[in-house]
């Protein structure tokens, strides 16, 4: 084609920044610390600290929330679709996985796959509705759907086991909290890989384009409807996976766990984490998870402040602190946690340290203002 045939002079571009040897060492040290904290510390592996089983379990919750936040980020951040019934996708994944393992007596891995599929299908059906509605009305539909799932679908006894719930045993070899943590970590890594590759290739670029400017996207040949549905499928699949991991962490799935409140907390942690920032969203989710199960406050020795001084039970701290952080994010720090850590993140990836990296002007879900 003509583009390749055109003569291309060898131009000298500006020399890209390369860190000094000391710079490399510094970055390497930080990477090593992060790796140790994530890979070794929670599993008592190569670690002088003793982490109790319950704490490993708390860490697992952080990982699972991260998967869920990533799934919501695909919908809200990449595709610009607001989903306020996300706990339904997650819950469906949980129950499906439990059902497959308990009632159908399959392996955990089959349960995981089924959960992903169920999440994807459910999401695509809702996505087809989204194609016909504007953002606000679609948000309403997802809200209503979430309530319906909670009241109706999750009440089908044969599927969800009624009040007693369904058992969700862990796979052989991963029964202990420590081992299960590593399993979830591995799956988070897979989810991150797919998310990364998606955004670095044709699919992700199509999503970003259609979110911001569907007309231009279409005129570049992007099938806006198809790619929107793809985003729902991917987001739904990730949610289903998160649901499965959640189920087998709790060992029993009860419908009460998938209340409406959870949907708002999920949205909170994704927006506060920072839309379209993988690392921000993961950190946001971990933050909310560890806040909710008390481990964060334990670590910071702040438990007394909430429990004694404010008599605010740990369980409800995210409900009170979360919205305040949301308001902060929406009005003053639109890039959320992702924006705050952007300078460090860029530095770790070998670029020069830039305090102004990752500047975001406003929380942009969609562009519709009127």
């Amino acid at each position, binding site marked *: *084609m*003509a*583009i*390749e045939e*055109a003569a*291309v*002079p060898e*131009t000298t*571009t500006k020399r890209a920044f390369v860190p000094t040897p000391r710079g490399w060492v510094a970055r390497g040290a930080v990477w090593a610390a992060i790796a140790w904290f994530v890979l070794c510390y929670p599993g008592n592996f190569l670690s002088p600290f003793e982490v109790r089983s319950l704490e490993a379990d708390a860490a697992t919750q952080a990982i699972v929330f991260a998967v869920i936040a990533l799934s919501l980020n695909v919908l809200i951040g990449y595709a610009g679709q607001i989903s306020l019934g996300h706990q339904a996708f997650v819950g469906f994944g949980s129950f499906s996985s439990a059902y497959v393992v308990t009632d159908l007596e399959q392996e955990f891995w089959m349960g995981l796959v089924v959960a992903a599929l169920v999440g994807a299908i459910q999401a695509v059906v809702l996505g087809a509705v989204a194609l016909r509605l504007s953002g606000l009305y679609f948000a309403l539909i997802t809200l209503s759907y979430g309530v319906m799932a909670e009241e109706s679908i999750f009440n089908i006894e044969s599927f969800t086991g009624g009040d007693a719930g369904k058992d969700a045993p862990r796979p052989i070899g991963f029964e202990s909290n420590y081992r299960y943590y590593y399993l979830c970590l591995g799956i988070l890594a897979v989810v991150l*890989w*797919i998310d990364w*590759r*998606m955004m*670095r*290739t*044709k*699919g992700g*670029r*199509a999503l*970003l*384009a259609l979110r*911001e*400017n569907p*007309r*231009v*996207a*279409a*005129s*570049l*040949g*992007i*099938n*806006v409807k198809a*790619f929107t549905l*793809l985003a729902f499928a*991917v987001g739904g699949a990730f949610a289903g996976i998160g649901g499965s991991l959640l189920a087998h962490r709790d060992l029993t799935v009860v419908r009460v766990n998938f209340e409406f409140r959870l949907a708002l907390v999920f949205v909170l942690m994704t927006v506060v984490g920072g839309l379209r920032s993988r690392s921000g969203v993961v950190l946001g989710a971990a933050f909310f998870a560890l806040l909710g199960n008390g481990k964060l406050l334990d670590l910071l020795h702040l438990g007394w402040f909430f429990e004694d001084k404010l008599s605010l039970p740990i369980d409800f701290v995210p409900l009170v602190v979360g919205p305040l952080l949301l308001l902060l994010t929406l009005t003053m720090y639109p890039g959320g946690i992702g924006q705050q850590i952007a300078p460090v993140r860029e530095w770790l990836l070998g670029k020069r340290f830039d305090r102004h990296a990752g500047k975001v002007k406003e929380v*942009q879900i969609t562009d519709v203002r009127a």
Partner: protein
Amino acid sequence: MSVLEVTNLSITFGGVRALNEVSMRVSEWEIVGIIGPNGAGKTTLFNCVTGFYAPTAGRVRYRHHDITDMPVHRRAALGIGRTFQNVGLVKGSTALENLLTAQHLEVGYDTLAGMFGVPKSFAEEEKLRRRAGMLLEMLRLEDVAGERAADLPYGVLKRLEIATVLAADPDLLLLDEPGSGMGPEEAHALGDTLLEIRAEFGVTIVMIDHHVPLVTRVSDYVYCLNFGEVLAEGPPDVVRNHPEVVRAYLGEDPDAPINEAEMEATLAEAGEPV
């Protein structure tokens, strides 16, 4: 055969006839200009041709395809590229990313394969980057490759938009006011760029613009629209001196004696050398 053929196109919006029996024919490698006052229906015509609007009557034919009912992205796949009045780019992405996105139709792996990180996708991405780099150089945009489109000045954005529309390897380019915001010298340079692009890429161009001298110099054929109808058509000089066209732009009775001073002033404003 013609590249683009619009036959008796009409479209009505809530009682207003925005286009009324408009017919147009564009031949291979032609540059066709469309002029006319604001609100004449020029962009509406583009929107019908590209598929954003569905006409109430008439057909649109691209080569041997009747595309009147085809969705927008399928028309793009056939080889129709288009620029927009308020610069059609993904503002949140960098210039390079925009050029990668624009190559959507040229990508050699399929979406799912890309998502799972299949080895072929990496090699293909490299190829896309090289192509994007070449386009950036061709339009003197290498320095802003890593800048977000939202941060770039208007003139640069216009060039970037042309780069993106070329990236998809189109046969027919529909340019909606490529010269807007430009002064007479810039418009002249743009004209050179357009002629170059036609020569290098072998594309057919249809352009809407208000710079009458630009359109006149560069076009092989010109249509003038007013109130949704074709007022005049023909070679540029014929159309430019057509009394109806003059009246549409200058709003005067063509039989009345011409006020030389006023005419000079108006022509100077339109960028015409006086």
